[in-house]
């Protein structure tokens, strides 16, 4: 058997096959890693840059961030509340762009928009926005500069080392706080 395998290996085709198999597994893993780090397709290609550029505050649409764990995603009531008032669309001077037509379709059908959360931590990590906002962090510290991106994407790998780096750096002079912020039970339960 070993002989067969060895002779098979000495065959260039066999070697290529082995290489392909290896590459397949490797690229599969790489692709898997990549998919966890890329923005998933959203039902509506929401242009963050446009809205931030117009001066809309993050907390206007994600109001949960300063009072609870989840920042929350806006309901279509909130979207449409502004967009239906835009006079250029209302009086028909400008045709409704494709993405806004999707929004209108949702509103007309009274169906919720199934936004896909982007910056998500695994189930076993319990992240709370409120203390982070309370500690004076800005949204872009973690979510990047939204005025530069359209559809939200993750600017960084949100892994434990990344969390800890900040938790450590901000508690060098406060051992009690450090205890709290490095405690396993603060995030994992």
């Amino acid at each position, binding site marked *: 058997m070993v002989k067969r395998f060895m002779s098979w290996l000495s065959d260039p085709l066999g070697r290529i096959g082995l290489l392909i198999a290896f590459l397949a597994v490797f690229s599969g893993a790489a692709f898997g890693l990549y998919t966890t780090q890329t923005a998933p397709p959203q039902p509506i290609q929401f242009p963050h840059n446009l809205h931030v550029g117009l001066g809309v505050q993050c907390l206007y649409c994600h109001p949960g961030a300063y009072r609870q764990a989840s920042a929350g995603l806006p309901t279509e009531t909130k979207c449409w509340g502004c967009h239906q008032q835009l006079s250029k669309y209302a009086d028909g001077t400008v045709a409704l762009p494709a993405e806004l037509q999707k929004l209108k379709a949702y509103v007309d059908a009274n169906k919720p928009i199934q936004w896909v959360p982007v910056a998500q931590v695994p189930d076993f990590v319990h992240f709370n926005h409120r203390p982070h906002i309370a500690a004076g962090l800005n949204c872009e510290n973690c979510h990047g500069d939204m005025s530069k991106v359209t559809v939200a994407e993750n600017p960084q790998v949100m892994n434990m080392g990344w969390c800890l780096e900040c938790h450590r750096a901000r508690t060098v002079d406060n051992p009690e706080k450090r205890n709290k912020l490095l405690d*396993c039970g603060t995030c994992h339960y």
Partner: protein
Amino acid sequence: MTTELKIPEFSANFAESGQQGKWGMAIDMDICTGCQACVAACAMENNVPFVGEADSGYGRSMHWIRTERFWEGEFPEIKMTPYQPMLCQQCGHAPCEPVCPAFATVHSQSEALNLQVYNRCVGTRYCANNCPYQVRSFNWRDFERPEPLPNQLNPDVTVRRRGVMEKCTFCIQRIHRAEDQAKSEGREIADGEFTTACAQACPADAIVFGRIDDPESAVSKLARGSRGFHMLEELGTLPSVTYLKAG
């Protein structure tokens, strides 16, 4: 009969030991009626799976809290020993912690609790072997929860999968929620402001939960009483749960 094997009772004065943690629980065995409301409440709050008939009969049930009882004497003079709810004692000196090779069960320095970090657990089950109270339960399988039962799962608590050890957390998610709430309002947590799921459900109020390091809290007062004792105190595990002797 195995009356000799009854769990020993040692009286202890918690305040004197000077080893109290932060959170504590007092369980009054005199008024515990064994009704199992705590068991159900715990299971519902903490996403504890049910395991089915065969596995539960084989010692694989996942109860984070169980009610123990033994018998004393023979009919007609037979007595049932007081119901004793057994849950993780949140030991100050926990035998389970140092034996985990992966740091999956560790001591919280800020909450003074035993933590089980599910995602860090590789399933050696050493901690469960070393737990003198036998209150750890292991996910022997991915226990089935047919749809739509998962709708009930508490999003504040990780859903454990096969191969992971789990145990009572003193409802740490509630502790965090209350702490966060109190902090956002710039105050301390008041005694009795929140409680664990088992204490919350207990119809007899036999379970009292609170700050054990606050001498004025309800749980401290109960724990200091003359009826208080700790389970297997001779092992020096410094449990955070004080039992109150019946009668």
